[in-house]
């Protein structure tokens, strides 16, 4: 301020003391100019470049630096120091060129600009470069990024392919998880992309494989109106995790829809690390279809091409023939009767005379072969017996001796026994009666409409047949020893059936039936 004032005073003195002729106007002061150098250059991501600014026509050569108009720049565009040191961003900006501007401190309207191209020398490699991955399994991919600069080294992972949304998934670390359901086509593309330079990416082809097996366990035959448990075991490759959902369907050449039977109570349990067992209860139709085969088709949701099938026959009713078919006997004489049971492995029969179990002295008796006196036949396993004619000609003559198959499907029932095993898993309910193979028992059954039968009251509805030391079959109720509480009378009742000969048990049962249902 002080210097400028003296100069002005000098001009005033000259004006008053000099020539009086007009003089030309003074020349305008020279324009300040700013030039940035270099004007064009490129720099790798994360690297640095130095700019200089030349300011002319002023003694004030100070400048301020900006990037794309942002003083000092920023992380996206790159930053620049007051000394003109530019540091490129870690990730490529869009567009990939920036303007570096130096603005004169002396005249803020004056500036110079340099153009900077931000480039990358990033190269990517991917390991593995192709892979086969089982359903639900995982595969780790690794992407290596090489560069001479200092860019952002992170990788963006993505999946694509014709499988669309069913290709599986990939996490931020590059671990791929195959879908649990096989897509079609079963091919995915795994892509690793540089975050710093999205133009740099590399892909690997992934084949999604399905190597699990599905096995179906079903009986070869099911009695008409009976039930069977069918087990489907899916065994997968270790480390994989295919969907275990199954669809079950019935079909047959002689049936469709519900006429092939009904499926119910589908359960799925992990039998082990690699296998899952699913079971379903099949109830066959009461009317045997013709042809009598039914096919169970089990389709895994994870790969329907692995569909498994089992075909079983619906057993028709068994047939029984008795020989001789006719006989003429004198009073108190005998004839040996043979029962031939077909279409079942259970050859046991129940004998009756004129509808009376075991017969009686009026119409004749069913006796053990050769027994004298007559030893009544109570076992259902006896297919050969003696018919002993009565001592007098019966009122209804002739009489009919009938053998009814113990396995007659029209008189058989399927009983749901609770608990059981699938693979290594064992389900149990304490108190449910268990039976040994071949064991004979009377059981009282109970079911709601449409349900399979269960043993009524568990131990209370179970009457086992056991032979005593003399070989006589006797009936004992499982709960015989326990006094039971009757909620109707609110009293305890004693005296369950224990060690009762079969014939007497049958009589008691028949009497009870007659009393309850006149």
């Amino acid at each position, binding site marked *: 301020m002080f210097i400028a004032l003296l100069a002005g005073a000098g001009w005033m003195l000259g004006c008053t003391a000099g020539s009086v002729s007009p003089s030309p106007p003074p020349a305008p002061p020279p324009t300040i100019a700013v030039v940035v150098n270099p004007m064009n250059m490129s720099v790798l991501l994360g690297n640095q470049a130095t700019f200089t600014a030349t300011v002319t026509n002023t003694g004030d050569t100070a400048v301020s630096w900006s990037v794309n108009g942002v003083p000092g720049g920023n992380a996206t565009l790159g930053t620049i120091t007051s000394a003109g040191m530019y540091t490129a961003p870690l990730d490529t900006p869009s567009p990939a060129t920036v303007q570096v501007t130096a603005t004169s401190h002396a005249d803020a309207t004056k500036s110079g600009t340099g153009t900077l191209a931000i480039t990358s020398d990033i190269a990517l490699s991917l390991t593995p470069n192709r892979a086969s991955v089982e359903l639900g399994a995982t595969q780790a991919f690794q992407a290596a990024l090489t560069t001479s600069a200092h860019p952002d080294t992170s990788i963006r992972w993505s999946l694509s392919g014709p499988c669309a949304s069913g290709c599986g998934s990939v996490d931020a670390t590059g671990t791929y998880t195959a879908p649990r359901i096989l897509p079609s086509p079963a091919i995915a593309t795994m892509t690793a992309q540089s975050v710093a330079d999205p133009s740099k990416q590399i892909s690997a082809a992934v084949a999604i494989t399905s190597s699990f097996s599905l096995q179906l366990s079903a009986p070869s035959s099911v009695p008409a109106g009976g039930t069977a448990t069918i087990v489907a075991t899916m065994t997968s490759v270790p480390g994989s995790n295919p969907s275990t959902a199954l669809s079950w369907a019935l079909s047959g050449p002689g049936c469709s829809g519900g006429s092939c039977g009904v499926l119910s109570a589908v359960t799925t349990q*992990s039998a082990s*690390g690699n296998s899952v067992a699913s079971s379903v209860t099949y109830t066959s139709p009461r009317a045997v279809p013709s042809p009598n085969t039914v096919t169970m088709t089990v389709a895994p949701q994870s790969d329907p091409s692995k569909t498994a099938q089992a075909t079983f026959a619906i057993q028709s009713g068994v047939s029984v023939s008795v020989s001789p078919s006719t006989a003429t006997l004198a009073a108190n004489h005998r004839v040996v009767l043979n029962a031939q049971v077909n279409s079942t492995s259970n050859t046991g029969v129940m004998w009756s005379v004129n509808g009376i179990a075991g017969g009686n002295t009026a119409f004749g008796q069913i006796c053990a072969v050769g027994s004298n006196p007559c030893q009544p036949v109570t076992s259902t396993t006896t297919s050969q017996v003696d018919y002993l004619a009565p001592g007098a000609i019966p009122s209804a003559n002739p009489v009919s001796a009938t053998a009814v198959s113990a396995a007659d499907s029209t008189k058989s029932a399927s009983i749901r026994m609770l608990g059981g095993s699938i693979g290594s898993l064992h389900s149990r309910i304490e*108190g449910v009666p268990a039976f040994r193979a071949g064991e004979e028992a009377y059981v009282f059954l*109970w079911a709601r409409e449409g349900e399979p039968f269960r043993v*009524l*009251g568990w131990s209370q509805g179970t009457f086992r047949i056991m032979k005593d030391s003399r070989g006589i079959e006797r009936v004992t109720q499982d*709960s015989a020893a326990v006094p039971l509480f009757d909620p109707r009378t609110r009293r*305890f009742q004693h005296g369950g059936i224990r060690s009762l000969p079969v014939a007497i048990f049958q009589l008691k049962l028949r009497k*009870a039936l007659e009393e309850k249902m006149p």
Partner: protein
Amino acid sequence: MKLRAKQIFASALAIFYGGWFAPVAQAYSFGMIVPDVRQPAAISSGSACPVRTRQLVSAGRIAVRWSTALNTNPVTILTQNQTAGGRLTEIEQVIAQSLAVWTGVSGTTLVPATFAPLTRTATQNACGSDGVNFICFDQADMAFTPGVLAFTRVISTDRLGVQVGGSAVATQFGQILDADIYFNPSDSGTTYATPQALAANPKAYDLESLLTHEFGHFLGFSHSAVWSAIMFPFAPAPGTFSGMRPTSQQPDASLGDDDRTGLRVLYSDPADTVHLGSINGRIFPANSLALPASPPGVTGVFGAQVVAVDAAGGAVVGATIGGWSCAVPGPAQFDGRYQIDGLAVGHSYTVYAEALNVAVDPSQFANATVSLCRNAVSDPGWPALQGCVVPAVDVSFSARTRPGP
């Protein structure tokens, strides 16, 4: 035919879970399972000797959830508190109390901290083979027939490394992977009452007694033939309850000594210095010709109840189902052997045996007897040398006291 049978039973059979009568002492028993020796020894132990089914015990290891879905028409769970929230709280207290009865037994590794905090779910039909232990009051099931009040479905495994649903992977032979308790919701004539509500509802069954019994199965118990045991298979009559109510001084009051001894055997505590006593021996019929000819190899009485009675007090302290033994690599031998463990030291005991047909029947012990053997018929590919057949429980003998020396 079906209806006829049903009608007969309506009056002739009364209702299941009735009561007890004769003070006959018999035994606790456990669910048994034979490891699958067809698998590598590392995951099957390589031995066909039966092992007990039991929960894996460690702090917070056992979680129990209960479904707050209750039967509403009719209401089958009767409570004193009639508010919606109060009912649930009251029921939950009964569940917790029933668990505390078992964790209150001294000398076992089963302690309150073994159980994770009881949790609720509003989910209906929550019980299932999913690896989560549930209690359900409103879930119908095929196991229910008239007269069946409640049951526990237990899923265990015969090898290591197995899981069911979301269960933990088995690390212990015979490990229980899932145990669900079901109460019959479909019998409109059957109700259950909390202890607070029982007196006012004498036709209801005591919820706490039933829960405590079912928790016994949950832990691995089969049934007991000791009439005073909570594991006796028949429930107390409506309006009554088993034993005594638990108190803070005696949290296990509703159990019988037989239950306590059984728990000490099943979850024995290495630090227990009191219940280290053991009695073992064999049972033979007076006439060896009385032994069954089939299956072959039966050399002693199978299925006898062997009872230890405290000579001083006369209390039935513990008992077991005798008749078999097993040495690695198995199978079980039916030689009449028995062993009663978990007996307090410093006491004298009287031991006697009796047939399993007095207060209960063999069918109540199926899981403790039928499960002792596996063979090529039951399990295809089972090695013959490790297969066996369980004989029928021998109930044809009567025990007589032999005069002392």
